[in-house]
């Protein structure tokens, strides 16, 4: 029993959960209505975004508050590739991956010159710039945005219900892929460098770890997939618009809440956090701004009380239960 919460625990559990959820989620569209599927699609998308934020901040110690830049840019790229360049919609969607990866390189080059706090603020400022540029781009509907052409949307399913099904499967596949990729990264050579860097950057450097190269890799992976998720989101919303596609609240603030509540640096964290978030949203959104205050207070409370989030609280509770059992047996 070692390396528990951080390593072995976080690989066995998600693999089992991953297998089980694939078995449940894949055939689900045959049993539930469109509304439920849309709801779950939404959950898968934010869960993936949360996984990617956790990959950066939780696993890599790279705190960005501007990752919504990539979600928005991916959405706009998808729109531009399909509508303006007339590319095949599937190809366009796939191309948002390398697009996001390429875009993240100059962004990282700029941000990596800044120290921790400035990195965060710089990432946010850059995201704002992206949004302003998106609102000025000719052919993208300016500040109010623009809808996808029906034939592009129809490529993903002729009828509404087949489309809802397909986007559901697509977003679930992306979520599984993202989780799988993170597990793979964490168990690669780079994963070791990453964990070493997070534990002790100076010692890691003296042992041959180049922190910037590790962080750049994380940034590129997350930028690529956020961009793809932005494309899926565009398909789900049927339109791009600066404030929605580049929403700081949806793609960064809420996401940070999910990761912090669920547990940073663990695969299971963003899963718990995202589920909790959509449940809270459903039950509290009627209260308006109070809902945001409750979320904020919960996140701050969690950071003060248990920075490891619910994942660690559950772990602790299990350990305690196991210990009492041992005592009773003895």
């Amino acid at each position, binding site marked *: 029993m070692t390396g528990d919460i951080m390593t072995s625990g976080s690989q066995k559990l998600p693999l089992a959960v991953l297998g089980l959820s694939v078995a449940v989620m894949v055939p689900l569209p045959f049993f539930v209505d469109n509304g439920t599927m849309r709801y779950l699609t939404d959950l898968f998308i934010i869960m993936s975004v949360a996984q990617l934020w956790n990959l950066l901040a939780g696993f890599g110690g790279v705190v960005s508050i501007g990752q919504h830049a990539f979600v928005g840019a991916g959405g706009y790229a998808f729109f531009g590739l399909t509508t303006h360049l007339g590319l095949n919609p599937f190809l366009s969607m796939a191309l948002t991956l390398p697009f996001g990866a390429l875009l993240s390189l100059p962004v990282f080059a700029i941000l990596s010159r800044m120290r921790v706090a400035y990195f965060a603020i710089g990432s946010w400022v850059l995201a704002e710039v992206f949004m302003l540029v998106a609102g000025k781009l000719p052919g993208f509907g300016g500040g109010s945005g623009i809808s996808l052409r029906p034939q592009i949307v129809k490529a993903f399913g002729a009828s509404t219900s087949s489309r809802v099904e397909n986007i559901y499967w697509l977003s679930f596949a992306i979520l599984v892929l993202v989780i799988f990729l993170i597990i793979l990264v964490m168990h690669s050579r780079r994963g*070791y460098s990453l964990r070493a860097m997070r534990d002790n950057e100076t*010692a890691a450097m003296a042992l*041959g770890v180049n922190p910037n190269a590790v962080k750049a890799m994380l940034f590129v992976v997350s930028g690529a997939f956020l961009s793809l998720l932005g494309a899926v989101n565009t398909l789900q919303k049927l339109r791009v618009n600066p404030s929605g596609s580049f929403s700081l609240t949806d793609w960064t603030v809420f996401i940070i809440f999910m990761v912090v509540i669920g547990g940073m640096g663990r695969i299971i964290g963003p899963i718990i956090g995202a589920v909790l978030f959509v449940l809270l949203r459903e039950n509290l959104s009627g209260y308006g701004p109070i809902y945001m205050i409750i979320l904020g207070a919960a996140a701050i409370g969690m950071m003060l009380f248990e920075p490891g989030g619910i994942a660690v609280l559950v772990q602790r509770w299990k350990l305690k239960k196991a210990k009492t059992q041992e005592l009773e047996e003895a």
Partner: protein
Amino acid sequence: MKPLLELRGVSKAFGGIEVFNDVSLTLEPGARLGILGPNGAGKSTMFNLISGLHRPTGGEMLYEGHNLGQMKPWNACRRGIGRTFQIPQPFGDMTVAENVIVGCTSGAGLSLHEARDRAHDILEMTGLGDHRDKLAKSLALLDLKRLELAKAAAMKPKLLLLDEIAGGLTEAECDTLLDILQKVVRRDTAVIWIEHVVHALTRFVDEVAVLADKQIVVRGQIDEVLENAEVRRLYFGAEAEV
């Protein structure tokens, strides 16, 4: 023979405070040099310069002919400079074996598979075999020091920098440490060992140098250096453990 490491008139200041201003030193491949010097003389700082963690304020530092003064720490490591830290710097949330694997993969460029094998061997040699699956943060100080050595030795460095690895050890523990050193340090590895525990040094190094008064004041065979009146005044007035 071409020197492995060459420092020429190296100086280092933090802000306005000068630690040393004229350190010159050459080291042949495979040579073993001990460094003595009073507390605060700048011995650890010298290691920080050689391993690329700090930049010298002046002078020249060459390693295999490359300019060390501009080299990033990870590149210095990949070119074969391994070091331990005076205050152990474990990767606390990784297991003992994983700590060593980092050096083997990032530092020595081994595949994960090869790295696991080498980590296994080194941990056996350093007496950490039983702790391999423990989190590094749970180790006691003595084991943490061994882990420092294991991490640095696992990458098979050409130059190994040891910073007070024998400090605070009992006589018996010191003997064990020397046995371990003989096992893990290959004969062709050059070593610079900073140590206050002179009797440990004498059993391992060929020569010693004394860093004091902002420079290397004397270098030579260990008995000669210990006889040196200047050294006695500078250093052993304070804290001899001979």
